[in-house]
């Protein structure tokens, strides 16, 4: 119809023209049967007198040519229109195919053949039976390149194509969520997808307890002694707790399955499904993103090249612990760059080794003292002195300018001119939250804190929650924040699990964190603990009784708020040296430090006082302005044990 109209439009003037001409010529040649209108229109063009036969021929030719031209034009236009129409229809029909192609092969170049969609369903079914055994065996099989023939794969060895609860990431937050979901939803089927080869494990012992173990096989067993003398593994549960991913769909009472060595590369939020790095698609009802983060590296090291990178450890996972343990036994000097929790803990752990092996341990960072961004200056200085007594050479106010590899040793040049020669570097300079899925899933990333932006209920979008290190969430009491601590991962993971099973609870229970730097310095903290905030510290005179070690031995009870967290506490440190009895009145043995924001206590550190976390939690929760913080400090009974 459109065709006709456009064609007619094009033809119309020509038609008019030619018909006018025709009529005119007809009149002129007198072809009509004498009924020529007497009054000839005055506007007739006067090309000349109505001529004779020669002219008639010319006119006839002219008309013919014009008509032919017109017809030709019309035909050409129609043909081209038809062709364009065909092309357009083809394009429209291939468009749905094209979008599914881009979904499935995001990493591939755009020029994709159109028979891809047919191949996709068969890819889903090609799962190697060998990989199905991965969760059980602790070995790490590589993703097979050649998928087995679809026909021969029995149905029971298929990976699930749908998981009611899909947890991306296999760390602390993910495991806490899995446990919460299973507790609240009877028979829940939970699938954890992780790119690590290990089952979910806890991270704090990797930089603390495991280093203090007497067992020479600790890198294999990964077992450590807790505060109560009992040994446990860093794995939250042994392999028998989990079921195989292949058995998940058929499990009558549900269960938790872990799919190792697979990375989620694409998320289709509207379709409620994800795609793995081996092109498997898994759909879900509820999804949790608990991807944690990747250790940051110093730019100077990255730019320094392969030789330097080979001698650098970015510490986070079990494999990093294993490799650093090996390295520390084989080199003469190790340098830790970073003065925060991880850096200081590793420095102390390696420092204790140095007394036995003669290993030189150096720690360098830009701040004025250890934990300079967390502790007020006086306490940071005091902590630095303690770290030095652990056998660590501490270089403060050290900014790394360049790192070079010379004669198989690393040469670190600092901005102020100092040069440090070492064999191996451990970089503990922060964590980059993993937000790889933000783009494909259309999730917001927070520009201030990093990580996925979620609301107070930890929800990012419909059916998607985020917990742990990667979550930038809204804390009702303290405002928007992102927390990178173990207890927070447990608390947020548990909350996300509750909300995934219909709870709609906001982040309310404040998580805490702790650190131990040797036998003399141990503290627990809660809330916002930032040294840029004004602080008030209330201290008691320290005696030999006031150390984590002593507190443990005396009470024989938990010195950490473990009933809320997964069991991770510092082992009784096997120290031969007696704790120094602090006589000096300026010694910060035991106390409470309040962090204030607008006169309200937003953070509390319990310095060498234990078992008082519930009171601290209460004070933060109240959010009241207290005129005299000494009165508040009385609530903690810092002079008691």
């Amino acid at each position: 119809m459109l065709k006709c109209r456009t064609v007619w439009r094009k033809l119309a003037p020509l038609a008019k023209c030619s018909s006018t001409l025709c009529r005119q010529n007809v009149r002129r040649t007198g072809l009509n049967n004498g009924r020529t209108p007497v009054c000839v229109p005055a506007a007739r063009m006067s090309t000349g007198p109505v001529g004779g036969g020669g002219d008639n021929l010319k006119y006839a030719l002219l008309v013919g040519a014009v008509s032919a031209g017109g017809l030709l034009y019309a035909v050409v236009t129609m043909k081209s229109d038809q062709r364009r129409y065909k092309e357009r229809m083809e394009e429209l029909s291939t468009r749905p195919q094209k979008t599914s192609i881009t979904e499935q092969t995001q990493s591939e170049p755009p020029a994709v053949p159109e028979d891809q969609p047919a191949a996709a369903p068969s890819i889903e079914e090609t799962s190697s039976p060998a990989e199905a055994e991965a969760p059980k065996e602790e070995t790490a099989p590589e993703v097979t390149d050649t998928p087995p023939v679809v026909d021969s794969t029995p149905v029971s060895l298929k990976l699930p194509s749908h998981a009611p609860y899909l947890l991306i990431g296999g760390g602390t937050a993910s495991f806490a969520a899995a446990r919460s979901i299973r507790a609240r939803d009877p028979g829940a089927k939970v699938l954890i997808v992780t790119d690590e080869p290990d089952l979910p494990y806890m991270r704090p012992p990797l930089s603390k307890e495991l280093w203090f173990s007497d067992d020479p096989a600790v890198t294999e067993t990964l077992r450590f002694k807790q505060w109560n003398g009992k040994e446990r593994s860093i794995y939250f549960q042994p392999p028998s707790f989990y079921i195989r991913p292949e058995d998940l769909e058929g499990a009558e009472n549900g269960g938790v399955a872990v799919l190792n060595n697979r990375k989620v590369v694409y998320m289709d939020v509207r379709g409620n499904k994800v795609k793995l790095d081996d092109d498997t698609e898994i759909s879900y009802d509820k999804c949790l993103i608990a991807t944690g983060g990747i250790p940051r590296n110093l730019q100077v090291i990255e730019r320094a090249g392969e030789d330097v990178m080979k001698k650098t450890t970015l510490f986070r996972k079990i494999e990093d612990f294993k490799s650093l343990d090996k390295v520390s036994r084989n080199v003469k000097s190790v340098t830790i760059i970073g003065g925060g929790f991880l850096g200081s803990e590793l420095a102390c752990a390696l420092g204790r080794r140095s007394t036995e092996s003669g290993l030189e341990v150096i720690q360098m960072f830009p701040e004025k003292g250890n934990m300079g961004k967390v502790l007020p200056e006086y306490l940071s200085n005091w902590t630095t002195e303690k770290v030095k007594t652990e056998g660590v050479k501490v270089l403060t106010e050290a900014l790394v300018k360049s790192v070079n590899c010379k004669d198989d040793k690393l040469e670190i040049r600092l901005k102020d001119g100092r040069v440090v020669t070492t064999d191996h570097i451990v970089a503990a300079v922060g964590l980059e939250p993993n937000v790889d899925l933000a783009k494909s899933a259309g999730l917001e990333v927070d520009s201030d804190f990093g990580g996925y932006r979620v609301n107070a209920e930890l929800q990012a979008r419909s059916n998607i929650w985020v917990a742990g290190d990667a979550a930038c969430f809204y804390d009702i009491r303290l405002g928007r924040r992102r927390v990178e601590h173990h207890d927070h991962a447990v608390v947020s993971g548990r909350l996300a699990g509750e909300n995934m099973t219909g709870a709609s609870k906001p982040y309310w229970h404040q998580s805490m964190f702790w650190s131990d730097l040797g036998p003399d310095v141990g503290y627990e903290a809660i809330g916002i603990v930032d040294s840029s905030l004004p602080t008030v510290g209330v201290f008691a005179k320290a005696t030999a009784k006031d150390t984590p070690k002593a507190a443990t031995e005396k009470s024989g009870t938990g010195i950490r708020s473990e009933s809320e967290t997964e069991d991770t506490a510092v082992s009784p440190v096997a120290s031969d040296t007696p704790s120094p009895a602090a006589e000096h009145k300026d010694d910060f043995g035991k106390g409470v430090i309040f962090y204030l924001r607008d006169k309200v206590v937003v953070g509390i550190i319990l310095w060498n006082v234990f078992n008082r976390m519930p009171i601290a939690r209460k004070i933060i929760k109240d959010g009241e302005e207290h005129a005299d913080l000494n009165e508040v400090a009385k609530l903690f009974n810092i002079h008691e044990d």
Partner: protein
Amino acid sequence: MKDFSKDPPQHVFQIHYNGFIDGSPHYKIIFVTKEDHEAPSNAELVEEDPNDPYEEQGLILPSGEINWNCPCLGGMASGPCGTEFKDAFSCFHYSKEEIKGSDCMEQFTAMQQCLQLYPELYPQEDEAASKQSSKDSAMYFSRLFLELPTRLCWRNFQ
């Protein structure tokens, strides 16, 4: 913050003002003796709402129901024997018999059977349990469930 530098009260041992930023004290340190803290605190705390829906609950919720997400249960309610455990513990909890739980033998046995399938997860402490009579079993299980919360916290149950 009160300004102590002009008129230090008697009981406070020592005060330092250090670290000023823009004229206001950035950090303050107070050293106190045991005597200083003897008098009860006059700090006011907000009264606790027992029905606070957000607060971390214990094993038994205010409504009387069991909080399966209580950390004190460890992995019991979420592991492979979670369903059996929930059935058994629920039955025990709501049991009105004289010997609490004596009407739950079926659930107890099912749970026991399941626990035995996973010795790595649930090491059997009481070898004699399997040999007990039904009445003794009820007593055994009631004891088990009554001390469940405290037991699990100390044992670091997996």
